[in-house]
Structure formats: structure tokens, C-alpha cells
């Protein structure tokens, strides 16, 4: 198939997006061409604007256009509790629950021993500094129960425990609405471990 140069270039760029194959990239490119010039300029400047203005919060490493971010700046959040997550999208998922009123710390990834991704590539030093300087009472590790998640939790625990603060990890177990008999044994044993009195 032949595309005129600028169109081919646009399709190529869309194809770099996560989960976008050649077919979808073409559809998106044709969609752009069908828009009014005004709309396309709006889209283009939204992309550039977001990239230019959204940075990591210097305290918690969440994405924000202001520094400190909206959560760190709020005086309605409990500063004695830090919830540690791997990525900004995990923070957003937790915020959706409206359950948690403390502050956050985004690691910007997980330790991956096999990939050679170590703690120095994450915001771990900054976390320890916060715990040291901010009168933190509890650190909640909201980190997935994968091999990389577990390695990260063990490593953080090794650093945090000597500081004499409470370190907890969110419970893992059966998905709500899930069937007990179909759960795998690791999920079941973790669910059993994390049981609590009713």
C-alpha cells in the first residue's frame, strides 16, 4: 500500500503507541485528516503542553503540573503515612477508592534482579530521606505480588525496618466476585496469610 510521505510518517508515529498495530494506526491517521484544522492544532498543542508542563513531583514523584503536586500540597492529607506504589497509574487507582487519606511515594518502577534494574534506578533514596525527615509513622507498600514486586518489597523492608517505623504491605487474596475453587495456590495461601477477624 502506498501512502504519501506525511501520512506515512503519521501512521509510523501512531504505531509506536502501546497496543497500536498497523491497522489501528492507519485508522487514527485517517481520523486526524478528517478533523478540522482547528481541532488538529488543539490536539497537537495538548500533546506538547502536557509533555512540557507535567513533571514528577519533587517530593512524591507523582506526575503533576505543579510542584509539590496537588496531593503533597493539600493540608487535608495525613503526612505521617506514606503509601508506596510502583507507578503513577497505581496511585490513581488507589485514589479512585477514596479510602486512603495519607500521602504517596511513586518508585517509578520495580527492582528487577534478572534485568539488572537496581534500586539506584528508582526513587528509593528519596523515600528513605522522606521517612527520615518527615516524622513518618507508617509506610504502606502497595506493590503487586509478582517476583519483581516481592523483590522490591523485601529490599525496601530491609532499609525501612532499622528506622523503627511500621512497615505494612497491602493484603492479597481473592478478587471480589471470584470463585475460591478456581484460585491458584499462591493466591489462596496469600489470602489465608492475610486473613482477619470479622
Amino acid at each position: 500500500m502506498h501512502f504519501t510521505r506525511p501520512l506515512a510518517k503519521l501512521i509510523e508515529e501512531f504505531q509506536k503507541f502501546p497496543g497500536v498495530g498497523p491497522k489501528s494506526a492507519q485508522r487514527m491517521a485517517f481520523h486526524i485528516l478528517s478533523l478540522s484544522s482547528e481541532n488538529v492544532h488543539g490536539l497537537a498543542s495538548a500533546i506538547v503542553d502536557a509533555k512540557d508542563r507535567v513533571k514528577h513531583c519533587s517530593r512524591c514523584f507523582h506526575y503533576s503540573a505543579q510542584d509539590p503536586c496537588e496531593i503533597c500540597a493539600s493540608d487535608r492529607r495525613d503526612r505521617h503515612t506514606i503509601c508506596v506504589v510502583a507507578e503513577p497509574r497505581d496511585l490513581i487507582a488507589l485514589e479512585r477508592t477514596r479510602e486512603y487519606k495519607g500521602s504517596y511515594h511513586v518508585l517509578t518502577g520495580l527492582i528487577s534482579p534478572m534485568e539488572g534494574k537496581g534500586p539506584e534506578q528508582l526513587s528509593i533514596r528519596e523515600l528513605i530521606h522522606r521517612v527520615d525527615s518527615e516524622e513518618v509513622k507508617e509506610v504502606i507498600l502497595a506493590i503487586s505480588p509478582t517476583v519483581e514486586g516481592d523483590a522490591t518489597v523485601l529490599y525496601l523492608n530491609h532499609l525501612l525496618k532499622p528506622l523503627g517505623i511500621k512497615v505494612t504491605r497491602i493484603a492479597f487474596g481473592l478478587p471480589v466476585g471470584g470463585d475460591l475453587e478456581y484460585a491458584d495456590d499462591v493466591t489462596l495461601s496469600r489470602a489465608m496469610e492475610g486473613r482477619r477477624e470479622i
Partner: protein
Amino acid sequence: MATYSATGINVGSFNLGESDKIVTIFTAERGLVRAVAKGARKPGSKIAGRAEPLNVNKLLLSTGRSLDIISQAEGIETFPKLRSDLVRLSYALYYAELTQHFGPGLAEENEVYFDFLRDALRRQAEQDADPAWLGLRFEFGLLDLLGYRPELTYCIICRKPLMDASLGAFHQDWGGIVCKVCMNNGQNDLAQSGDNHSPSGFTIRTAREITPLVWRHLILAADEKIPGNHLSGKTAKPSIKQSLTAARRILQGYIEHRAGKHMKSLDLVADFEDL
């Protein structure tokens, strides 16, 4: 589509597209296999847990055009205790990393290696013996299967039997220990020629010094008749732990020299082991 069944240990994975994973599996039936785990990154997907590194599964695979696809996976073993100790978890991942690299060369010994790897993971998970000691045992076992067993009792240059007083260094190129006399000769030759490869062929840069204690750990670990729980994880004296770590690093260096690449999994806990 043709299907086949296999029992395998996951030794690695990487992401494919939006929600899939490609899993590297060492199977008892076919050795190293790469297969797609569809939907393995979707939350709540049944295959997600099964596709995790170090898990052992009974699999039903469909042969695809380029990659095989996991159509069914039934978990047999997951070593949950490995997930509670960072050093042991790192060793287990190191075994997996070595399997990824050397797996293709073990094709003729699929079943033997599968059992060997599963046993090694079980031992590391049992949390009984010292993790570095178990790691050293694993390294010797792997080298044996690959046909690279190092020479530990004779000097590899002059063939004289080694003793505490005559120990020189471990020589990675030649896969064995060089006695003190030969090491000094090598160093003199090096000083005269200014060349890394001296006339006696001794490359100082790839040699690592050996102490009697380190030597003993190597000899003991190389002997299959010595029981696995020789060194308990908690009671070993610091000096013994240090020399054990040194012995293990010599062997890792030798394996990496053979592999032509650095194994990363133990980098994270290197500082912990030196404590």
C-alpha cells in the same frame, strides 16, 4: 493446530503487546521453549500467576507459526518461601538466568537438567543450608552437565598436586587452579614481555587469588557426596561466610567467562553478602 504437553519451569519472560507475555520455559520434554501467554498481564487473568518466573507448570502448548502458545497451564509448584528472602530469591533468579543462557546447550539432557533445577530451587526455598553454599553446588552441577568441570586438585600448568602452601590463583581461561610457582613465573613473564598473554599463557587479568579456606569450599562443594546442609544459613562464622562468598564468586566468574556475559541477578544482594 498441533498441540503437545510438557512440564516446565519458567525461567524468564518479557512483555508482548498490550496484555501478553512471552515466557521462557525449561521443559523436561523439550528443553528450552519460548511460548506466548495470552492475557498474562490482564488483572485477574488465570495465566498471570502461572507465567511468573520460577513457577513449575504442566502445560498444553499449541505450535504456532513463529512462537508456541500456552493453551493450558496447571500449577504444580510455586516455591512461595523464595518470595520471603531476598538473597534466596536472587539466587533462584540467578539459576533462571543461567538456564536461559545455557539451556540450549543442555538439550540432550532435558530431563536430568529439569530435575536438577527443580531440586536446586526446592533446596533454596527450604531455607536450610546457606544460600551461597547452595549456589556454589548449583554452579558445580551446571558445569558438570556442560562438561566444564574445573580442575581443583592439580596445578593446571605444572600438574603438581596442590597444597595449602602452594595455592596461586584460579585461572578462568584454563578452568582450574595455578600453583604459586607457576603464577609467579607467569607474572615475571608478563613483566618482561609487557604482554597480557605471557609465554606461559598466563593471563593475569583473568586470575583470581585463592586462599586455603576458599579452596576448601570449592573442593567440598564439588564433591557430590557432601550433604547439602553442610553449612547452615544462620550459624556460619563471618570468616567462613566471607570465604564461601569468595569461592562462589570465583565460580560465577568462571561461568560468566564461559558464557561471555555477566549474570545480573546477584548484583542486588552483593552488598548484603559482604556484611
